[in-house]
């Protein structure tokens, strides 16, 4: 019994293979994350296929992305690519058992991810204010913009554009929360709560993110339950698995950026 407890403790602290035979030569958490990412790639694949299918089968497909939008999306791409590099450096620091630099690199990754979300939110708000909306969105103040006719004539465009990019934005948001929990554990929860409440009161009610910010509240609830049920000190394996998820959201954007933005330029 004592040996069992000792061995169980060894597994918990990341020592290799006491209880679990390695599957595919990797520890089970990593294999589990790879399998999740394989299934999630099919979700994004279906959304990208839906976008491309509608684009091929619809005449008069709009090209709403001017120079400003392309410049904005290029900066967003650079943010995600840079965040992947800082994530790799965070994994290296975790494997060196350097806690301070692990936290620093994860924080840098979160900053790049947050910059991506903010820039994407600004892009969405601009398009919505110009009339590119869906029926469920709050009505923007002022007159209908130049894309109001597009929303009425080709509703497939806003439906597939907002559906695909919202799904990706949600994944980036979950990724930032995931990294925050791994880096700061329970101390991240109050920060997340403050951002959620502040966002709700500071974002105008005619902006779609006034409601979208509740994703942070849901993230706060889920993170709190996970940290309550299994409080632990996250090790190098946890950081590596979190990194796999983060690189995946970067990977998906490598297809969204050319297919959605660069193929619909108005230059």
């Amino acid at each position: 019994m004592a040996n069992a407890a000792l061995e169980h403790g060894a597994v918990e602290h990341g020592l290799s293979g006491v209880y679990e035979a390695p599957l595919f030569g990797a520890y089970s958490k990593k294999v589990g994350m790879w399998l999740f990412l394989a299934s999630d790639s099919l979700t994004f694949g279906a959304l990208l296929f839906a976008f491309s299918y509608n684009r091929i089968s619809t005449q008069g497909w709009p090209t709403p992305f001017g120079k400003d939008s392309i410049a904005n999306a290029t900066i967003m791409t650079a943010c995600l690519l840079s965040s992947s590099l800082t994530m790799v450096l965070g994994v290296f620091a975790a494997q060196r058992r350097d806690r301070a630099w692990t936290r620093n690199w994860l924080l840098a990754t979160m900053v790049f991810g947050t910059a991506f979300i903010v820039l994407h939110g600004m892009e969405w708000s601009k398009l919505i204010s110009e009339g590119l909306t869906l029926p469920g969105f709050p009505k923007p103040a002022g007159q209908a913009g130049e894309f109001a006719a597009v929303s009425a004539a080709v509703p497939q465009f806003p439906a597939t554009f907002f559906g695909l990019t919202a799904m990706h934005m949600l994944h980036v948001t979950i990724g930032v929360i995931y990294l925050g929990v791994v880096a700061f554990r329970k101390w991240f929860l109050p920060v997340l709560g403050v951002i959620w409440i502040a966002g709700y009161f500071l974002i105008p009610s005619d902006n779609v993110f006034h409601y979208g910010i509740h994703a942070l509240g849901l993230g706060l609830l889920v993170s709190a339950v996970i940290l309550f049920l299994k409080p632990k000190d996250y090790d190098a394996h946890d950081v590596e698995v979190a990194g796999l998820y983060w690189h995946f959201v970067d990977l998906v954007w490598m297809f969204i950026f050319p297919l959605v933005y660069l193929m619909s330029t108005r230059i």
Partner: protein
Amino acid sequence: MHDAGTYAATHDDSKGQYFWVWGWLLVLTAVEVVLAYRQVFQPVRMLEVLLVLSIVKSALIIGYFMHLKFETALMRWMLVTAVVGCFIIMYFFFFPDAGRILRLGVH
């Protein structure tokens, strides 16, 4: 399985390759943007070129940043064949129909 300590010892000295991968990803992104700005190709050819560049970028991310290049051959092949196989099935379901609708001009 990589133990955290031995992993760091074997891979920490090759950190530079990740900066190279990051640099190449930025360069390929810049190439995509220039192609789109200059409208170098017709739309269908542009789609093909952008997709090839995206596949190259995703291979760099999966291989190096996600570290699949350094996993066992069994894991590499199982993941890649399963996901690519599913995408091929999706392609054959969706795109012949989209092209047919376009040729028929049903609008």
